[in-house]
């Protein structure tokens, strides 16, 4: 019985996790060209809402997020490519506006530390096991 409940709860969580339904795009913002709109949505999902900081502008209802969504759509209509749009935003707000930190010399530690620590962990476990076998 408990197990059944557990499975139900887990599946609800999983459905919510994968559905990713949260969005704040208002009808008047949506572009007529579906391809362009999809690109705008894609970019918006990678852009941090600077006001709320842990949401993307695609999910946020903050006024600044709305302004940025509209701005991105205008840039797309003007024929700007994705890189140009990301550059426009990071020039003004810094790398922090990207939800994924870019791969740079400055962020190298950020990207590699997990692997280094994983390596250290493996080494310690291996070392420890070997030692206890000897004992």
């Amino acid at each position, binding site marked *: 019985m408990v197990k059944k409940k557990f499975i139900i709860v887990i599946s609800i969580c999983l459905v919510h996790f994968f559905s990713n339904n949260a969005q704040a795009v208002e009808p008047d913002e949506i572009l007529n060209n579906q391809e362009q709109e999809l690109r705008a949505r894609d970019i918006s999902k990678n852009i941090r809402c*600077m*006001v709320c*900081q842990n949401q993307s502008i695609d999910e946020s209802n903050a*006024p*600044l997020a709305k*302004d*940025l969504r509209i*701005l991105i759509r205008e840039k797309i209509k003007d024929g700007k490519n994705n890189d140009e749009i990301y550059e426009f935003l*990071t*020039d*003004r*707000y*810094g790398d*922090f506006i990207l939800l994924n930190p870019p791969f740079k010399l400055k962020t190298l530690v950020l990207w590699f530390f997990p692997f280094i620590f994983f390596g250290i962990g493996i080494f*310690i476990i291996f*070392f420890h096991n070997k*030692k206890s076998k000897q004992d």
Partner: protein
Amino acid sequence: MKKQLLIIPFILFLFILLTFFYLLAIERNPSELPSNLLDKKIPKFETESLLKNERFISSKEFGKEKILVNFFATWCQPCRVEHAYIKRFSKENGIRIIGINYKDNPKKAVEWLRGLGNPYSDVPVDKDGRIAIDWGVYGIPETFVINSNGIIKYRHIGPITKKIYKKINLLIKDIE
């Protein structure tokens, strides 16, 4: 020898603990972000002026003297709170202050300045918030210190408090 190696994790742990404690102890606001525009030229803009009959053209205004730029709006409560300090800057320091009126109702803004006093030498209007985006503004009030070469030397996010007032005051005297 191998026993001695076991002390390494403890040293590492202590190091991490100290780092975290240091970050907790020092005064900082992690949600406050450094400006990407620091030590760069101000973004150019051209817009209408709230109080004057001529257009505001940034290239005509900046680059001659030190200027304080303050983003404000009548709907922003902290802007009202910091207004006393903005006035002090203009009175005590004599620095030129440009107040960018962010996404506001022009009528209300004029009344607001009439009621609280106007420390701004000019009030360019940022009707749709695009000027603010060019400045990397994400929450008003925000205040920028610009040197006489038109370069951004400091940015403060949030209302100006007594402490920030003193800090900016010293900075204004320090820069060219």
